[in-house]
């Protein structure tokens, strides 16, 4: 009979094969879903994965969606390495967009090279302050960070809606809930002329590089890893868990805030209610899929950026609901966690006589 058996040592091959396997399973599931809906599966998969990125414009759009995912995921990587379950990237992102917009509206007539940095900094500061609330609740009041960050996401969304319906609403906007268009000095320059791709992607790649340097070369990165792997060992070594928590949350907040600020100063150019299609939540999948590694999250953010484009393409080409994006993302994460189980376990044929799960002294944590 087929048995599930614990591996003596966690499999390093499976650790990196698991995301690829999960992607394969998701594509296969997608194939059968199209079949079940009576659509041509191959055409459907092509519309989802290939058509959106088959020209320069498409690739630029991919980079445009990658930027916020990469920035949010880079910050979350710090938190998750230290086993701080920060689900608040969505809220940080929204506060970044809000903070940047407030500054940009104040400076709508200002000109000069100092305007844009000020606007971006305002977004990062607002988001870092928002993340600091969760950090303080965690370190000083011992509140579970999952619950507080989720609640702060909903509060941030309502705060943004309030602002865009109220104080920041464009009086000449024909009643639409949106701010005035920002001045030219507050807009991010294009990265590739003639496309919508802006400097945000460069910020994202720099952030990934910084994450790599942090964990490969710095003591703080090492401390974050130890706190995550074994908090007791970290305590014995005298690593300040509080200080590290604050560091991870503030960086996560600032980076996600930069993502939000780049979104309003980049492709949108004003504050609107639908500033995020859930980038902050998708970034969680990016981090898990990218194995909490800099190079991994760059690749994963490209794939998940493609799910947004693919969903839009299927809506146009095959008249499917846009929610196919969320379905795809959910399937991917679900398959990933299932495949991840085989980092620590393996399947084995065994005669019925010796049936029963044999357990071997474990190495590492699931």
């Amino acid at each position, binding site marked *: 009979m087929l048995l*599930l058996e*614990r591996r003596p040592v966690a499999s390093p091959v499976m650790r990196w094969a698991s995301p690829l396997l999960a992607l394969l399973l998701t594509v296969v599931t997608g194939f059968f879903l199209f079949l079940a809906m009576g659509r041509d599966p191959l055409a459907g998969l092509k519309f989802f994965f290939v058509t959106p990125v088959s020209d320069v414009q498409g690739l630029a759009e991919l980079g445009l969606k990658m930027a916020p995912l990469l920035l949010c995921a880079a910050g979350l990587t710090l938190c998750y390495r230290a086993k701080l*379950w920060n*689900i608040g990237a969505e809220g940080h992102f929204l506060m970044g967009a809000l903070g940047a917009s407030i500054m940009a509206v104040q400076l709508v007539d200002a000109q000069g090279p100092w305007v844009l940095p000020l606007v971006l900094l305002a977004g990062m500061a607002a988001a870092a302050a928002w993340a600091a609330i969760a950090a303080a*609740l965690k370190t000083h*009041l*011992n*509140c*579970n960070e*999952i*619950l*507080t960050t*989720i*609640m*702060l996401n*909903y*509060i941030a969304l*309502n*705060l943004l*809606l*309030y602002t865009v*319906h*109220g104080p920041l609403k464009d009086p000449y906007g024909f009643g639409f809930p949106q701010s005035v268009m920002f001045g030219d000095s507050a807009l991010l320059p294009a990265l590739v002329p003639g496309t919508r791709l802006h400097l945000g992607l460069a910020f994202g790649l720099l952030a990934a590089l910084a994450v790599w340097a942090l964990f490969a070369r710095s003591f703080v990165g090492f401390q974050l890893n130890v706190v995550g792997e074994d908090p007791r060992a970290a305590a014995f070594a005298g690593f300040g868990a509080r200080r590290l928590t604050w560091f991870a949350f503030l960086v996560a907040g600032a980076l996600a805030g930069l993502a939000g600020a780049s979104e309003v100063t980049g492709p949108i150019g004003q504050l609107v209610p639908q500033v995020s299609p859930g980038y902050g*939540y998708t970034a*969680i*999948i990016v981090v*898990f899929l990218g194995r909490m590694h800099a190079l991994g999250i760059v690749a994963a953010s490209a794939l998940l950026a493609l799910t947004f484009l693919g969903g839009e393409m299927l809506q146009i080409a095959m008249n499917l*609901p*846009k*929610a*196919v*994006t*969320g*379905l*795809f*993302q*959910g*399937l991917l*994460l*679900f398959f*990933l*966690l*299932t495949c*991840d*189980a085989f980092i*620590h*376990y393996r399947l084995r044929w065994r005669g019925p006589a010796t049936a029963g*799960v*044999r*357990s071997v002294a*474990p190495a590492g944590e*699931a």
Partner: protein
Amino acid sequence: MELLTNVLAATVVAGTPLLLVALGELVCERSGVLNLGQEGMMLMGAVAGFIAAQASGSLAVGVFAAILTGIAMSMLFALMAVTLAANQYAAGLALTIFGTGLSAFVGAGFVGHSIDGFGKLAIPLLSDLPVIGKVLFTQDLLVYLSLILFVSVLLFLSRTRGGLLLRAVGESPHAANANGLKVMTVRYLAVAFGGGMAGLAGAYLSLAYTPMWTEGMTAGRGWIALALVVFASWRPERVLLGAYLFGAASILHLVLQGLGWKSSTELLAMLPYVVTILMLVLLSWHPARTRLNTPLSLGQPYRPGR
């Protein structure tokens, strides 16, 4: 008096979905399993209940479909978190993200449809009582069901052998196993109960509270319920109280508007979430007491033979 009665009645209605999902999660957590997928299971329950009710023309079929969908979703979680001993946080988050995506996809064609939801059903004689009659005995069928379920869970946990087994598994799965209890089976059953209750809570939203389907209609109630269980220090009677307290917080903006109080809807809509954080803060004044009440093995995967 009339206003107070109406507000209290609306509070019970708003608190019922929270009560349902939190009771399910409470039983699940008492067995040592923390399922963060409540929001996803609720959404799936809501959409499945709505579609089934619309297709069959029967609300009972809708409720049944919602419960079964919730259980099916929870089994996905159990497979990962109980059998494969995966990280319960990650598995629960995956379930929520998966459920959010799948429900939006399945329900895309049903947005904007509406059905006749559960109507109020006055219980004879009892409903004639002043205040109480209107608040507790002139409600829809699912409210009565939620109260019956509350009493059942309360008695099950404190008065039955099954409840004792469940708690034993949650406190110390290894000791329970040594005594011949089937830890995996107990945990599977507890997770399934949690899933069924979350599905039912979803059905309450899409079949009674606002009889229609909209994407993400649970609006974080699954997450609030998780906080509620912590706040209630894993005691059913406090879950009941907490659920109605949250119900009150979530309808406060309607009350204030009714009284002619001018404020932005968006700002008042923050209230339940702010209250949740405040509750968590309030709790941490007695961190020791919370730790005393937490099921000891909560969140830790059980691996036989270790």
